[in-house]
Each structure stands twice: as C-alpha cells, then as structure tokens.
C-alpha cells in the first residue's frame, strides 16, 4: 500500500497475534470436549468463552 509511515507498517506483524491466540483457544475447546467428558468439558467451556471474553473486553476498554 502506498500510504502509511514505516512506524505504522511495523505494527502489522502483530496484527493477527490476538486473533491467532483466540483461534487457538477455540480450537482447543472444540477438540477437548470431543476427547472426553468431565474436566475436558470444563476446559472446552473455558476456552470457547475466550471469543466472548474478547468482545466483552473490547466493549469495555476499546469503545470510543
């Protein structure tokens, strides 16, 4: 892209850092409950809550 200073472009490497972390948590949750019940179910509830938590954080801290 033609515009944007060099300082801006440097940030683009971490652009997907948080989305990848959320995606990994989701994937762990989707698989965990498949492989067993009990604790694995609980793990899936926690990890699949991460996308929901991300929205709540955004609403709380990034709304302007």
């Amino acid at each position: 892209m033609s515009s944007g200073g060099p300082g801006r472009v440097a940030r683009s490497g971490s652009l997907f850092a948080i989305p990848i972390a959320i995606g990994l948590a989701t994937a762990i949750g989707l698989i965990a409950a498949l492989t067993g019940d009990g604790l694995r179910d609980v793990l899936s509830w926690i990890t699949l809550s991460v996308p929901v938590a991300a929205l709540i954080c955004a609403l709380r801290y990034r709304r302007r």
Partner: protein
Amino acid sequence: MNRNTLRAWYLVHKWTSLVCTIFLLMLCLTGLPLVFHHEIDTAFQEPDPTLAIDASLPHKSLDELMQIALADRPGHAGLFVSWDEDRPVVNITTAPRPDSTEAEMTLRSYDLRTGGLVGVITDDGVMHFLLKLHTDLFLGLWGMLFLGLMGLLFVAAIVSGVVLYAPFMRRLDFGTLRVSRSTRLKWLDYHNLLGIVTVVWVMVVGLTGVINTLATPIVQLWQMNDVAQMTAAYRDLPPVPPDQLVSLQAAVDTARAAAPANRPQFVGFPGGAFSSPHHYAVFLQGTTPLTKGLLTPALVDATNAELTALRPLPWYVQALLLSQPLHFGDYGALPLKVLWAVLDVFTIIVLGSGIYLWLGRRRAPLEQRLQEVETGGAVSRGRLA
C-alpha cells in the same frame, strides 16, 4: 497488498457473501433453537412414569419388541432399530417396504423391559419444521446439496473476510469499536471484531455443516464400495424378504460376540439405506468418549445370523460421523450448547452488519469502497493525517 489484490479479495468477499448471506441467516436463526433440540423436546414431553420403574428388570428380547412394533403397524416391515443412551428405550422405525421414503416411515419408542409404547416420534412439531428447513429447505437431497454449496460460498466469504481484516486493521488496535463517530463506522468495527473472534468456530461449524449435507452420497458411496465388497458372495442371491428374516436378537448377539468391548447403537435392516439386501448391519460404538461416535458395522447374514464381515468404516464415513457433534455442539453438556448459541448470535450480527454495510455503500464507486478497507474506515485519506 497492492490495489489489484485488494480489489480481487474485496470482490470475492462481496459476491460470495451476497449470494450466501440470506441462506446463512436462515441457518443461523433456525440453528439457534436447534442447538437446544433435546432440551426443548424433553421440556414439552410428559415424563413417562413407567420409565422410572425398577432398572434391574430384565430386557425383553428384540424379537418380542419387533413383534410388538409390527403389530402396532400392520403391513409394515422393520427398517432401523436404535438404542437410547440415557434410558432403557429402543426406537423402532418401520415402513411398508425396506426402501420406503422417509414420509412413509413410522418411528416409535418402546420400553426395553416391558415392551410398552413410550412415544411416537412425529413430524409435525415446530422443531421438526425448523430441522427440515435447516437441513434441506423441504427439498430433499437437492436442498441439502444446495445448502452445502451455500456453505462453501460462506467459507470463501470467511477466508476473504480474514484477508480484508489485515489492511483494515493496519492502523487500529485489536478490538477497536468506534461507536460514536458514525453508524457505518460502528458497524464496520463490530463486523470486523465479531468476524475475527468467531472465525475458527464459524469455519468448523460451516465446514462440518457442508460435510453433513453430503451425508446421503457418503453413505451411498460406502454401500457401493465397502458393503458391496464385503457381501460380494451374496450378489446374485435374491433379497431376503422381510417375513423370512432370522431373529434380530440372534443377529445382534452375533455382532456383540464379535466385538465384546463395543455396544450396539443401531441396526440397519436388509435392503435399507444402511445395509445390504441380505444383511443386518449392526453398528457398534466404542465405549470411550472418543470412540463412541465412531461406529463399526458388523454385517450379519439375515438368513442364519452368522457374521459375514466386521470392518471399520472408511475415512469418509468417519469424517461424516465426526462432523455431526462438531456441527451440532451437543458433545459438551449444556454450557457448550450455550456457548454455541452465543457464537451463533455473534455470527448473526456479522451477517446482518454485512448486509447493512453493503446497502450503505453499494452505489459508491469501487475505488472509494476499497479505500475504506485500506484506511480502516476513513472515507478519505485526508482524515488520517
């Protein structure tokens, strides 16, 4: 990303979304109550007092239960028998012929211990309506395949959406929600944020949904390949007529003896969609959570109850079986279903905001719309300075 690449991805995102969004909205809206199908059914069912009686009572033989079921439906033959997981109940599907259509079938549940009728599963409830709309738009196989195609377009829309997320977010912090500047900017931010946080879930539910739409051809392929191979010796024999079948109980006992660690989950009768014309197919499930969903069919000769073959399902049927829980979200108790519903609502918001964003800019020149993506929502570059 240069302008041409951006333009291509933008157009892919726009057109794949435009074609599939209305169907995806329908799927997400009908899917929301369907996540709780079991809970809703149970809530509206009268609790059956007979099911509470002594759990140690011996089970009746399957032949006796079949006799009761067929006496209830004169002129019918058995098609499928399946066992409930959480109560001593067997579900028996009957129809006039082994190859009858779904509309001609009757599905009744019986108490394994007393043979008493527990319930008739009917096709006229709201949930059944939603399920049919969700699976095939009331159009049968072609409806299913059509929705599968919409699912593939949805996957393309998701991928292109992720690609566009990069230039859009280049100057923005993750999770930025600019709610006070303009309605359009607000929904752009919600669309991007909800889209990116749900992407893995929505991809899995979307792709497994596509696999589920292929259920019929997948099972037919298995019949044509594996079943035909395993029963090659029977190829030239006439089909076994329903009134000359060997004892169902004997057939199930044969299968259990061949795989003592497993338990039968359902039986496909000879001539039906899940067996050969000469065999009972007894589908055995494993006893660990992971192998519970992966079935192994035992083909049992329907004239003498001898085992013909016991072979694991091929990968494509295993993929179908694995796709079912991952699509339905019914494998991690109620909290998982609630999360499924929440993520489904997020997806509805992404779809709805997508339509809103398209409506608002559809008359604007393409270059201006690309600029909006490149600048993270600024209409002209001047505003960035």
